[in-house]
């Protein structure tokens, strides 16, 4: 009997399920950063808003990278439902701290999929995630640098305005 199933799909269904969950997580991140851009615009942090517009696009690209991988491997990518986007932040510091927290969550999730894919012996899925593992190092580092800059600048007086101006350094 010919193996029609294996001829149709080159990763395990469990890997596909985890990658669909990751699609959802990237979509959630994209929506979250758009909400942060909205907050920044409304609170006068216009450079930070630009930073989050860039982030929102990047997260969408991450999502599409996984989406296309599922297409390439013969899987069934699911267009994600995104709900529960927080729009409330107590300060610009809160915005960036929430960003770092979220990126750490994403890193953990990706590491988890890598470990599980390894357990499943799904080499294709495991190797695909290499790029994401390294991308997360960069993402976390960017936000950590911004938080360091905030710490050094301080939020007193013109500090907040200086912070916003300096965020420009991380937009390219």
């Amino acid at each position, binding site marked *: 009997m010919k193996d029609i199933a294996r001829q149709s*799909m080159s990763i395990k269904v*469990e890997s596909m399920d985890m990658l669909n969950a990751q699609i959802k997580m990237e979509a959630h991140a994209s929506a979250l950063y758009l909400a942060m851009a909205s907050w920044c615009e409304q609170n006068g942090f216009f450079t930070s808003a630009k930073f989050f517009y860039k982030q929102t696009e990047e997260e969408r690209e991450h999502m599409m990278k996984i989406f296309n991988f599922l297409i390439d491997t013969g899987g069934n990518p699911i267009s994600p439902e995104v709900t529960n986007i927080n729009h409330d932040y107590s300060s610009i510091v809160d915005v960036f701290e929430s960003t770092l927290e979220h990126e750490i969550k994403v890193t953990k999730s990706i590491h988890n999929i890598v470990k599980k894919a390894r*357990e499943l012996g799904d080499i294709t899925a495991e190797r695909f995630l290499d790029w994401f593992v390294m991308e997360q190092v960069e993402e976390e580092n960017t936000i950590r640098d911004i938080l360091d800059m905030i710490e050094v600048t301080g939020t007193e007086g013109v500090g907040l305005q200086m912070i916003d101006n300096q965020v420009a350094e991380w937009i390219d």
Partner: protein
Amino acid sequence: MNVILQSTYYTLYQATNERCFYIDFGQKKIRMPFCQLLSLRHKVMSIDIEDHFDSDLNTHGFEVLTLCNKEHLFILNTLEVLDLKNLVEYGFMAIGLSSKTEALNL
């Protein structure tokens, strides 16, 4: 046509010459290209069976399942949903696309 798996109510077949699968739902046998089988899997796995035991969440204990781009429509009761979930899980193990396939061969 080869039988891949038979559950209480359903049978999954592979039609090698047509490069597709069939599921016998009792009332009718449905032809399913592989992508439709994946779509079925997603729909069936998304059904929250817990809702069937909560009269507020699922008043009548039925699920409406549309298949193959709305070509077919089924109304399933709780036992049928559970059985279909089984067919999907073990079916993907049997066709070798689930990591649990190896466990099955032991």
